[in-house]
């Protein structure tokens, strides 16, 4: 019980990309503490950056801090981001972009979600009373 409590951490961050260095620090400390292998650091930071900045840029109605929740549980890493007082948006319904277009037809848009989906094993979504929580799961072994 005591151990499982230690393997979780939560922190809220203001809605600005300027927070990213702080977010990465927070994740690094949790990963070290929870003994998550180094090979997961960059991909999981990628997932959190992409989704955090999307909430900042696109969440309709969002004004409050965004909650980042990290857990190590049953051999899996579970990252979730919760946005309060916003409209519903389910990342799982976003269609994939075509990454095989030539330069002329490529735009930078849409790459974030396309890439983050490739870095996790599962994605969950929950929406209750304006509270929008997206959960990313990565198997550790």
């Amino acid at each position, binding site marked *: 019980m005591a151990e499982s409590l230690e393997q979780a951490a939560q922190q809220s961050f203001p809605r600005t*990309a*300027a*927070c*990213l*260095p702080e977010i*990465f620090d927070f994740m690094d400390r949790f990963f070290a503490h929870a003994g998550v292998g180094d090979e997961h650091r*960059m*991909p999981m*930071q*990628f997932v959190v*950056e*992409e989704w955090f*900045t999307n909430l900042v840029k696109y969440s309709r109605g969002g004004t409050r801090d965004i909650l980042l929740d990290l857990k190590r549980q049953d051999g899996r890493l579970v990252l979730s981001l919760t946005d309060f007082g916003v409209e519903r948006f389910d990342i799982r319904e976003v269609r994939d972009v075509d*990454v*095989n*277009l*030539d*330069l002329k037809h*490529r*735009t*930078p848009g849409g*790459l*974030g979600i*396309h*890439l983050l989906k*490739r870095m996790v094993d599962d994605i969950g979504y929950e929406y209750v009373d304006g509270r929008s929580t997206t959960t990313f799961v990565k198997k550790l072994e």
Partner: protein
Amino acid sequence: MLDIRVGEKGEIVLSGRFDASQAVKAETFMAALTESRNVDVSDLQYVSSAGLGVLLATQKRLMATGHALKLVNVRGHVREVLHYSGFDQIFEIEAAPPAS
């Protein structure tokens, strides 16, 4: 933090972390370029879609005048991200030599 500078052979050297908080800085640097350059990413630990966006916009602008960025010493997380983005079709990419 992202460090961005010109190396000894005129190549652009990116090191550190190329995340959304560093995109404006990279954009400002890239805006000064008018010719083809190698971009050495051997010490770049991380790149997000914000970083990819800056590289893509620069490539588009340079290609309009027949120039291009070439990414060299690509490895690890950066290599993976470039690959899944289909950037191997847009940039000439040279992998890092295997670690000795």
